[in-house]
């Protein structure tokens, strides 16, 4: 089983629609994982029936037993996240949004008034689609546990692949190069950087390829909107070459693509894309 992760550094370069399209074009058994759990969009492009959504728990939140609390406010002063505040009626109140469940309040409370309850940070499920199982998730708005939820959906992706005998796990990753990206790319066989011509995408691609190198994972490149600016595209191809990343597809800019995406249709259904992405998938298979 080979795990292939689609990343980009810069957001909005086309990761999700290209991943969905590769999932449709690849005839081999596979599992699709939406690892952009903060703003998950893959399910929009791959219709099917979801299993029951399962809760995702991560960490805890502080709970005050007001029977025991003597309103000394030590917790208010000591909370490292300023998540406990004094209310208008002079009681300490935990802000669940800011609380990280570190337990310092419990350490400093003179009357042992604190307990810690498990915190639900999101939900996840497996969808049965025509193109294979899709593991996807929804992190609660404003959460700080995206890396852990990414790890959860990736683990389920591997389990689904083992169960269904899939050859490939296609992972749609988050933008950036921080925590959730590390969780999305650790232990994969190939990073595919989806990029576009331009100084921003090039800057971000550089950092992403360095990160892939840091993790010792080979990288390939899909150049999206390739004809938007020929000079910028040339610069980008040079970056790819310098960093030893093979270009596995060049996709032209077509206004039909955003038009299709506004209706939930992935770019594979735009005329001409079937062949480009079919060839792209062959190249990717050779690399892994």
């Amino acid at each position, binding site marked *: 089983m080979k795990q292939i992760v689609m990343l*980009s*550094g*810069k*957001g*909005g*370069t086309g990761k*999700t629609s290209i991943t969905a399209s590769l999932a449709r074009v690849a005839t081999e058994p596979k599992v699709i994982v939406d690892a952009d759990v*903060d*703003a998950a*969009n893959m399910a*929009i492009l791959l219709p099917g029936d979801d299993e029951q959504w399962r809760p995702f728990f991560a*960490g*805890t939140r502080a709970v005050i037993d007001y029977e025991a609390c003597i309103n000394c406010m030590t917790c208010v002063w000591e909370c*490292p*996240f300023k998540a406990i505040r004094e209310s208008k009626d002079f009681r300490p109140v935990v802000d669940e*949004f800011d609380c*990280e*469940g*570190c*337990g*310092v309040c419990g*350490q*400093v409370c003179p009357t042992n008034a604190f307990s*810690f309850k498990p915190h639900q940070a999101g939900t996840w499920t497996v969808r049965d689609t025509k193109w294979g199982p899709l593991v996807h998730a929804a*992190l609660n*708005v*404003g*959460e*700080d546990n*995206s*890396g852990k939820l990414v790890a959860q959906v990736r683990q389920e992706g591997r389990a689904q692949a083992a169960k269904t005998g899939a050859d490939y796990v296609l992972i749609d990753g*988050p*933008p*950036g*190069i*921080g*925590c*959730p*990206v*590390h969780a999305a790319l650790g232990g994969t066989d190939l990073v595919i950087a989806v990029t576009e*011509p*331009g*100084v*921003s995408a090039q*800057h*971000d691609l550089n*950092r992403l390829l*360095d*990160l892939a190198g*840091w993790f010792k994972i080979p990288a390939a490149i899909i150049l999206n909107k390739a004809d*938007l*600016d020929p*000079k*910028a595209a040339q610069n980008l191809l040079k970056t790819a070459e310098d960093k030893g990343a093979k270009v596995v597809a060049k996709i032209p800019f077509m*206004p039909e693509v*955003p*038009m299709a*995406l*506004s*209706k939930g249709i992935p770019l594979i259904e735009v005329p001409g894309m079937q062949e480009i992405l079919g060839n792209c998938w062959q190249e990717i298979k050779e690399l892994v």
Partner: protein
Amino acid sequence: MRIAIASGKGGTGKTLIATSLAVHWAKQGKAVTYVDADVEEPNGHLFLRPTFEKTTRHTVPVPRLAGFCDGCAKCQDACAFNAIIALKERVQVFDELCHSCGACVNACPHNSLKLQPRELGDLRHGMAKNINFIDGLLDVGEARATPLIEGVVEAADGELVIIDSPPGASCPAVTAIRGADIAVLITEPTLFGVHDLDLAVQVCQKLNVPPIIVLNRANLGGDMMDAIKATGAPLVAQIDFDPQISVATARGELAIDVVPGFADAIANIADAIVVSEVVS
């Protein structure tokens, strides 16, 4: 006034609008600070081209053993994040899991753990013509963006602060938007755009920051007006797709300076921000 430029979905035009607004207000003679809080992939510097005057290494405190250890594991038991484990007469800290809360320091019976700074990336100050410029550059390989975002946002003060926020709806976006007087959410007319816009509006509501919406590439996609209305935040401006803007941006040029008509579109957004801020 502190203005967060945010989006939910990536690549909708946050940096384009944020840098353009900075240039617009600076041209009017206002004292503007532009803050690039997308520390994982900061791009504002590519357009505003500041001269950096001061670069500091931003750090976050993590525990280090600085005294006697008998491997009692009280630190390990106290850590809610599995970031420290006790070995025989020493500890192992997993820096990227540490939330710097100090519970381990409190728990150590020998008072042997001390919080010491760990470097995350660069915090850079400079001037771009008359725009005060601040950004953060997370080290490649570093997972913890949020403390650097906090540092960058806190470093900015002034009458008019524009915070170019990271995408998403989790802690990095929250950290950048928190404390702003208004959030300008940039979206595009696709199902992804409006799905993620809705998340961004929810983030703003949680943080008590009033959101307003700018629809970018308004003519490139479908009719998403009902979905935009359903978020409950007002749509204050629309910008049509113009290949000249894309090409200028691809080349690192400021579209506001080179694309005819774009300065007017930005002036409209600037006015809408000022009006919305007064109303709210």
